[in-house]
């Protein structure tokens, strides 16, 4: 019952006119951004973050807006996947496998509607699980001291290294680069300046927003420019087909399973939508054994599973972000960074001390998903038309927004130069198949990790064995070792599956 009254508080926050407007606006913009080919959720959130900050929104409103963009883009990503065979981001790759064949045989409308319904069911199911799980997890997390946090982050980075990206070593290097960037600036413990190269702009540390926009958005422009070819992509017609009741009955268990899978993969630190949708798709294909010939040729089960899973994981990824302050994916890492910018440290106490933020966000996600279902069923035609926007009109706007956003923070051109340099760096990383999400995760968590490590060792007077002294820390250490060893064992037993391979190739 406590949960219900907390949720009621949340809805009272979400229903204020400003927040209601921001939910709708965020969902609409997110769908729009997600449906534009090549620009995924992470870029959408990155580009809008400095704007939300500079406009001076209160923290809960800014978070509601950015979260709306995030899951709105998870909806929008399917449009270009289904109609163009171009996934907006790694999480939408699995959607192309069965979505595009359907639209090629004239069932575009049916495919879009099925994926909208699956996305909706996946989000709603995951939100319900979130409402139950988040308070439990935050109760557990209250018992976390500095040592537990250190080990939790070690676990998060291990999960990240073994499950994200093309090679564990590259993910590890990405994380380390992020952590190094986080050490720049004045040291909070002693006031010593570290790695500032005597540049005053670095005294406060490397600005999180500049790194995010540079590494993601600027490098994205370069990648789009590289891939640009002078012929317009062909949008397959949507057609008059639509989802039937029989379709939904047929995929109801698929959606349910995919939702649970997606949610829990989302909760795991470091693993996000791309892995969730790949695992859900693989599971359904195996479950349908003997009847799985249609997978990859336009089977509605193969479309419903990844769609439900990637939306469920988007909600799941919020759970560790809000309760532990450890983001579950690259995009939630950016949301976490946004909260830190507003001087709010997510963690177990967030639910008690700032219920308007935690529960307001959750309540707004219920509203947002209903809005998205409405946006995506009758209004789908509007977004489909957006697919034919030419890049020559789109790119100048993106470049402009990145510059406006970054300049509006400090009003200093230095940030603009630094952003472009980071963009080049991000581009190089992508070309060498490093994923960028670990860099952001390292940057966001670096300060917290160092602080907790130093606090732990202060407690023990310099004895490192304190890191393995409690039940929770030992449990986390074992979990980390398992996360490190299990994937290699599984790979050896089964050989590298097709989904894993696809994932590895496209996850940059």
């Amino acid at each position, binding site marked *: 019952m406590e949960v219900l009254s907390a949720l009621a508080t949340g809805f009272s926050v979400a229903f204020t006119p400003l927040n209601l407007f921001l939910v709708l606006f965020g969902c609409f913009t997110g769908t729009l951004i997600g449906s534009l080919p090549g620009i995924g959720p992470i870029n959408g959130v990155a580009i809008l973050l400095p704007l939300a900050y500079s406009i001076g929104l209160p923290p809960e409103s800014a978070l509601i807006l950015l979260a709306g963009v995030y899951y709105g883009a998870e909806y929008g990503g399917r449009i270009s996947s289904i109609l163009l065979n171009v996934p907006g981001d790694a999480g939408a790759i699995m959607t192309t496998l069965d979505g595009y064949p359907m639209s090629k045989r004239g069932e575009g409308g049916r495919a879009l509607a099925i994926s909208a319904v699956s996305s909706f069911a996946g989000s709603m199911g995951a939100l319900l699980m979130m409402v139950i799980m988040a308070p439990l997890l935050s109760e557990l997390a209250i018992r976390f001291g500095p040592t537990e946090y250190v080990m939790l982050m070690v676990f998060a980075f291990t999960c990240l290294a073994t499950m994200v990206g093309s090679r564990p*070593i590259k993910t590890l290097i990405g994380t380390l680069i992020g952590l190094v960037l986080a050490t720049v600036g004045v040291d909070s413990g*002693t006031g010593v300046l*570290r790695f500032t190269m005597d540049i005053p702009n670095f005294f406060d540390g490397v600005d999180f927003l500049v790194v995010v926009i540079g590494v993601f958005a600027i490098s994205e*422009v370069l990648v789009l420019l*590289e891939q640009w070819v002078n012929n317009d992509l062909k949008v397959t017609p949507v057609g008059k087909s639509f989802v039937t009741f029989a379709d939904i009955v047929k995929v109801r268990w698929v959606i349910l399973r995919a939702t649970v899978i997606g949610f829990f993969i989302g909760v795991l630190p470091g693993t996000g939508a791309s892995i969730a949708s790949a695992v859900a798709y693989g599971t359904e294909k195996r479950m349908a054994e003997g009847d799985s010939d249609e997978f990859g040729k336009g089977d509605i089960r193969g479309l419903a599973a990844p769609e439900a899973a990637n939306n469920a994981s988007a909600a799941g990824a919020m759970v560790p972000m809000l309760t532990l302050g450890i983001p579950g994916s690259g995009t939630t890492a950016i949301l976490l960074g946004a909260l830190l910018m507003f001087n709010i440290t997510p963690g177990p106490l967030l639910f008690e001390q700032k219920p308007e933020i935690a529960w307001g966000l959750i309540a707004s996600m219920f509203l947002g998903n209903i809005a998205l279902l409405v946006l995506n069923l009758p209004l789908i035609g509007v977004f489909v038309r957006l697919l034919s926007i030419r*890049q*020559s009109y789109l790119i100048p706007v993106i470049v402009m927004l990145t510059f406006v956003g970054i*300049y509006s923070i400090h009003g200093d051109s230095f940030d603009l130069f630094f952003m*472009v340099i980071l963009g080049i760096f991000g581009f190089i990383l992508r070309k060498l198949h490093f994923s960028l999400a670990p860099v952001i995760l390292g940057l966001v968590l670096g300060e917290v990790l160092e602080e907790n490590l130093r606090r732990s060792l202060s407690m023990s007077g310099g004895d490192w064995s304190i890191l393995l002294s409690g039940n929770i820390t030992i449990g986390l250490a074992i979990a980390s070792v398992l996360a490190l060893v299990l994937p290699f064992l599984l790979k050896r037993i089964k050989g590298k599956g097709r989904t894993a391979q696809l994932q590895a190739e496209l996850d940059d």
Partner: protein
Amino acid sequence: MYDRIFAGALLLLSGLIAWAAAQFDVPFQYEPLGPKAFPYILSALLAVAAVWLMIRPSADDWKPTKEVVLRLGGALVLMYGYAFIYEPLGFIIATAIVGGVFSWLFGEKPIKAGVYALVMSVMSFFLLTDLLQLNVPVGTVFGG
């Protein structure tokens, strides 16, 4: 090969981190670790990871054509230039110029690209300043 070069740069970086951390002048310190330990740990891990990558690099699969390299170089010069003129020339002029060239780089005809960028930058300026009240530079050369 690219991986090896990158790993070499990382190795250099890890050395620099350790060297710079050793130079920190710490006047007082209340805890056992202090500001140097964490950078040392990162530097060591980075060095190990870099050596590993150097021993086992991935194959090079980035083989851009000459045209692509030119295009990318153009975009970089353009963005750098944008950062350079953004404050002095102001948002409207800078965005119109840079946006126009970008539009052209992505295949638009020159005149159409220029007109589009001009309309976009003027409209955005009023949208950003009046509606969103953001800090958008008018241009120091105009006394802004």
